[in-house]
């Protein structure tokens, strides 16, 4: 059977990835720039015996997801920045109750109502815990439509593997840009839910899914269990590195900014500049170890340049990873018109100048 190749927006690729993973329920509320996801799901899910429901608010939608996920069914939600903020209370519950939910954020510019420009301004919110208490999502950041398709499908597997919410962190450019997507058949593993899902207490004792633990000892233990799980997720760290020995500068970027940065790095490399490229695909857990290992080499990089479509957020995680062993520069682009690779090249070159003069 031939593999189907289509022209699709990033957001459509996300929806198709979810369907490929046999997602059975979708809940949402309209918000630009991700409306193609609910629109596609409203057409496709009922045909496949699934459920599509447009809620009265993002608050209701995320709680519908909480209910559906508690029954062990594959379910997802999508929104964009302001809508995601509305869901944050329930994110904390979903993480505390260890439910395998898939959440998509097609980021737009903030703060406040902001705008519908592309932005990566929700990095902190996605990665550092978007609600009260200590918790983390596993965060995946695709950088083209093909990855959006594949990573969204993979998100369902990872959510079940760790019984943890997984967030797809995309943005307005990646979401609205049309490009080729190869609709490969993907092998998405299923993890059993017979031991925890709420399906009615037939031939087994009744179950409780909760996050309230008034005994201080019990609450402490719950937190330690969650902490251990977040540590374990490091086994599934994903990244892309185009780094050669002798590269003095490493440009770090994720999502659509990584598309622009990668091209700038390749161009600079062609021109003889010692510039490497590094793209975290899992933003949590952050591929810190990979960056740390780079610094163990004798010819270690001298500088890390972190390019982002925000006022400098991921740069903090790079700094933590590098731990003072190299200079870390923030190349920030607040939500506006996105930069061309040439603009990035110029800015990166400025950081190289002192190095190349040393070389001579």
């Amino acid at each position: 059977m031939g593999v189907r190749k289509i022209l699709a927006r990033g957001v459509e690729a996300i929806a198709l990835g979810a369907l490929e993973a046999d997602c059975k329920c979708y809940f949402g509320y309209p918000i630009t720039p991700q409306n193609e996801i609910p629109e596609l799901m409203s057409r496709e899910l009922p045909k496949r015996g699934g459920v599509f429901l447009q809620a009265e608010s993002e608050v209701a939608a995320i709680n519908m997801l909480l209910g559906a996920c508690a029954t062990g069914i594959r379910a997802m939600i999508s929104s964009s920045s302001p809508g995601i903020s509305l869901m944050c209370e329930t994110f904390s519950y979903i993480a505390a109750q260890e439910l395998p939910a898939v959440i998509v954020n097609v980021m737009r510019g903030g703060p406040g109502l902001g705008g519908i420009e592309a932005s990566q301004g929700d990095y902190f919110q996605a990665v550092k815990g978007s609600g009260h208490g200590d918790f983390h999502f596993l965060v995946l950041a695709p950088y083209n439509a093909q990855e959006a398709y594949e990573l969204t499908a993979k998100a369902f597997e990872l959510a079940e593997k760790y019984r943890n919410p997984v967030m797809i962190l995309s943005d307005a450019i990646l979401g609205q840009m049309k490009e080729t997507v190869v609709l490969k058949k993907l092998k998405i593993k299923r993890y059993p839910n017979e031991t925890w899902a709420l399906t009615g207490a037939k031939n087994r004792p009744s179950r409780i899914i909760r996050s309230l633990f008034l005994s201080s000892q019990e609450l402490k233990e719950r937190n330690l269990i969650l902490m251990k799980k977040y540590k374990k997720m490091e086994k599934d760290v994903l990244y892309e590195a185009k780094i050669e020995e002798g590269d003095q500068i490493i440009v770090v970027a994720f999502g659509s900014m990584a598309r622009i940065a990668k091209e700038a790095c390749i161009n600079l490399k062609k021109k003889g500049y010692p510039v490497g490229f590094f793209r975290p695909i899992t933003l949590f857990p952050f591929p810190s170890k990979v960056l740390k290992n780079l610094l163990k080499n004798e010819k270690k990089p001298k500088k890390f340049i972190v390019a982002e479509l925000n006022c400098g957020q991921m740069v903090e995680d790079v700094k933590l990873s590098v731990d003072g062993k190299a200079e870390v520069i923030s190349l920030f682009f607040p939500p506006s018109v996105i930069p061309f690779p040439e603009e990035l090249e110029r800015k990166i070159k400025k950081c190289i100048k002192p190095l190349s003069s040393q070389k001579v």
Partner: protein
Amino acid sequence: MYKAFKFPKSLKKNLFHYCPGCHHSIVHRLLCEVIDELNIQEKSVGIASIGCACFLYFYIDVDILEAPHGRACAAATGIKRARPELIVFTYQGDGDFAAIGFNESFHSALRGEKITAIMINNTVYGMTGGQLSPTTLPGQKTTTTPEGRNPNLYGYPPKIAEIFANLEGVAFSGRFAVNTPKRVLETKEALKKAFFAQIYNLGFGYIEILSSCPVNWKMDPVSANKEVDKFIKFFSIGTFKDKVEKFLQGEKS
């Protein structure tokens, strides 16, 4: 010998944490009797919400999910839509259902979700110590309305059972009390109907139950039980909508 009064099968043998004179324990027992009599223990999922009854799972022996404050009806919607074969109910207080969660409650009713919502109306926020709730009566003193609820500042209490009776998606709506034995029996019958509303796929089942809150009303249990009669003057008890009865009569004929 025939034993007429038994311990409900679906009631766990845990001591209630509720204050003396609180009506939660009566309603818990009624809920379990109804679950037993309808034989739905094995396919029920309850939603424990935030308030005095957040420990619902210590008492009711069915699968239970905890929902954030006010969001019980949305979480119940998610469960019912994902697995329509389950019987899904929420157990909420007046603050949870009618204040912070009003939007979720109202829209679930509008959609005619096939779920059962039980709202315990004691006119105050019980768990946090007796503050003003949407259902606090005009003039009623609470810890945040020490001079009594002033309608110029806080408006009037919503009569949810009457409002919901006007929504097409609602199949059963009524308000009941459990402060006399007769009313306990009436409440049980109504509770059954609120479940039949979803069992027969007729629509949203809503039941509001007036409850005493002796501690926050600053009364002894006996006086608080009598006080419920005063509340009935504002919150009249009875059935305001009943598609279930019509359906059952149609079945018979």
